[in-house]
């Protein structure tokens, strides 16, 4: 009998279904890979299991008992431990204090028995092959160690089922191998694992079975063995979606305007590529691929550690955001709310904030001139808003993003770095952004787009560079730009397939 049996699970947020009749089961002593693209419903399903969300319909049976009331504590009590992707550690406490939080060992007088707790922590770490000093303050640990601690903390709990949500994003290969050893050992003791990862190599190395979700629906599950290939799994994850409406048009390209030669920086290394004027180049990869960092480095926001970067024929020295802007570079960062918007400022102020830094020699603001420029760009970009004096937060995400785009058109930039430009934007607005990208490229602007959404890149990109863990994996032409291909390279499944075929 299965340890966990989830049947016909459905869940909607604000009337939008995110899970529809999903079935999912885990056996005792197995590692079960839960697969799907971003937005497929994996996290929602796991959050229902862990009691974070309540389900709208369906049954959950765990360890022979039906789980009815969904609470976080309730699911912890029956033996489900959830290791979240984002770390839930107390940075200002010591390592052992984190492990024993709310489970402190005390002496008979109620005094904390630190020596015992430290000793037990050490024993746990030795068992797991983790090299952490239990008396260190957590904030002093590097990211990989923190992730190891997070996992160790969960394994310390006496759970029957562990949910590991992308547990290896901050780990190096050796640390991953230690983690896998621990998982294999615990597996023998009958513990079960749900393993969520985008990295095919890991899935094929550790998982016994898989379940694939797509768009909130159950697609397939089965054993991981010789009969399935990473390619099959990738195909199941993306399905045979096709882009029904195409705005793509090819253009005449100009001279090379960006040349990266062995460029190395924060989270990426030895990257070579060149981009020509008027080109639209897609960049894709998982969150840990380092593309955001590459964009920030080109834009002068992060330092260059090695290699050379040449912009419009000039090798860059003393690069800064201001220098980049003077060379007519622009970056639309990811996470609009955090990195782009001035929430207390008006539409007009949000649009002009960058232009002001370039034209600072004349400090006076000519309000009428700004307003007429704003209105002109508003028409070009089709921004739907009432008054230029309205707060930026009063308009929709798609229109906000157009204001951010207007901010950079206003500086007359001709190289645009767009980091996830359609994040949190509805379908209609997305199509408009694609159209705008093409119009801008036709006007001779060079555009780099970082996106995890392949249909998006199929809409806009002339070619696509795929990254994995900070390294350029391959370049795909438009013809080769399929979800399967990208998924193979972006998850390093190409190499997993090689390992299996050996």
């Amino acid at each position, binding site marked *: 009998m299965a340890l966990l049996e989830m049947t016909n699970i459905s869940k909607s947020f604000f009337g939008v279904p995110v899970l529809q009749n999903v079935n999912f089961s885990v056996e005792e002593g197995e590692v079960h890979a839960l697969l799907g693209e971003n937005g497929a419903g994996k996290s929602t399903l796991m959050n229902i299991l862990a009691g974070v969300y309540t389900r709208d319909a369906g049954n959950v049976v765990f360890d022979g008992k039906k789980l009815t009331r969904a609470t976080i504590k309730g699911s912890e009590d029956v033996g489900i431990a959830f290791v979240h992707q984002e770390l839930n550690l107390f940075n200002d406490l010591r390592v052992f204090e984190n492990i024993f939080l709310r489970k402190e060992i005390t002496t008979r007088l109620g005094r904390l028995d630190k020596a015992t707790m430290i000793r037990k922590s050490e024993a746990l770490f030795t068992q797991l092959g983790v090299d952490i000093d239990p008396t260190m303050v957590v904030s002093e640990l590097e990211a990989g160690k923190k992730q190891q601690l997070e996992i160790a903390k969960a394994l310390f709990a006496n759970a029957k089922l562990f949910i590991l949500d992308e547990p290896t994003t901050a780990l190096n290969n050796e640390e991953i191998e230690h983690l896998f050893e621990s998982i294999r050992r615990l597996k023998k003791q009958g513990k079960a694992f749900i393993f969520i990862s985008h990295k095919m190599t890991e899935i094929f190395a550790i998982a016994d079975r898989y379940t694939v979700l797509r768009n909130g629906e159950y697609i397939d599950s089965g054993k991981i063995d010789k009969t399935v290939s990473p390619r099959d799994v990738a195909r199941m994850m993306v399905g045979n979606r096709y882009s029904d409406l195409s705005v793509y048009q090819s253009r005449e390209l100009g001279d090379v305007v960006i040349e990266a030669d062995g460029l190395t920086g924060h989270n990426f290394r030895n990257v070579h590529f060149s981009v020509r004027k008027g080109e639209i180049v897609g960049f894709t990869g998982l969150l840990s691929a380092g593309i955001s960092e590459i964009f920030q480095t080109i834009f002068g926001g992060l330092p260059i550690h090695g290699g050379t970067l040449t912009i419009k024929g000039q090798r860059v020295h003393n690069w800064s955001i201001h220098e980049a802007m003077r060379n007519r570079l622009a970056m639309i960062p990811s996470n609009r709310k955090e990195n782009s918007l001035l929430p207390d400022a008006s539409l007009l102020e949000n649009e002009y904030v960058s232009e002001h830094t370039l034209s600072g020699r004349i400090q*006076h603001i000519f*309000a009428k001139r700004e307003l007429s420029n704003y209105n002109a760009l508003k028409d070009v970009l089709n921004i739907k808003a009432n008054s230029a004096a309205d707060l930026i937060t009063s308009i929709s995400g798609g229109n906000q993003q157009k204001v951010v785009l207007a901010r950079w058109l206003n500086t007359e930039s001709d190289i645009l770095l767009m980091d996830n430009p359609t994040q949190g934007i509805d379908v209609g607005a997305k199509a408009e952004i694609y159209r705008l990208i093409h119009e801008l490229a036709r006007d001779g602007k060079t555009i780099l787009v970082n996106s995890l959404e392949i249909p998006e890149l199929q809409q806009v990109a002339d070619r696509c560079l795929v990254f994995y863990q900070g390294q350029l994996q391959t370049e795909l032409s438009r013809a080769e730009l399929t979800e399967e291909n990208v998924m193979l390279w972006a998850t390093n499944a190409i190499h997993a397939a090689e390992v299996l075929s050996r």
Partner: protein
Amino acid sequence: MNDKSAARTSQRKNSVGKIVGRYSFITIFLIIFAVFLIINHGATTWSGVMNILRHSTVLGILALGMGIVIVTGGIDLSIGSMLALIGGLSVTLFNATNSPLLTFVAAIGIGLILGLINGLFVGFGGMPAFIVTLSTMLIYRSIAQYYLRSMGLSIYNMNGNLSSYDSFYDFGQLKIATVPVVGIVLVIVTIIMVYLMTMTKFGKSVYAIGSNVKAAHLAGINVPKTRVLVFAISGVLCAIGAFLWLSMNGSLDPATIGKSYEMYAIAAVVIGGISMSGGKGKLLGVLFGAMSYTIIDKIIASLGFDALINDTIKGSILLVAVLAQIVVPAIRQK
């Protein structure tokens, strides 16, 4: 057509409500002013009203500096101490040179330096403004007191025998068409600061930093430099305040001058509608906030209360004013 005009009237109604909400500092000022008039039973004279302006001058100018610092999300606790140190050094300088003009220029220079010190620690040192200005608050006043003691004096006194003393002192008492000149200076400084913050690119970048520092940085704003400038301006405004203080009083006691002014300035800024977390609020409100507090002094004086009750009333008004600023929009949203 009918729909459209209806929409327009409702929009107008909304905007009237919005304007009242946005300029709540005027409402607060008018209420306090009305209380003042009632308590005086019509005995309020024009010169009494002008005295409010005059007595708001120093605090008002300091609070304007505090205002722009708070708009960036920072704070400047050292303004009262800067007043003491700049004032003290200015007295010494005047007594040595007999030149009000030179004193003024030197005061501005000293204010600039003191403000820059704050700004460099905050802007380029990346230290919290609260800590930096708390430290300089202690340092600046202590230097002013120590320097005075080292000269064997107990108070910074301008030398009345100097030939230009009278013209310096008279400037502080001068009235143009019954309006005190120092009050006019306050109004002019307010106008300049309002212009700086609303009609210049620098002002917009100050708001941008307070609103979202990360986005401001990625939009190309030089965040450290802007922070330094903001503190420098606060220092320069303290210098203007110190100069006006001397022309009004002729002397200063470094132990007491400007004590608690940082708190009153913060209160004036907050009553003026500037958010403590930065990014929003109007500098014009600071003028009304400062004047509101001056009137409270007058009310207590004319009621014959003990001056020690003063802070109870000032504190209560601050509480009520801020509560209203938070609660009223929350109710309106429902």
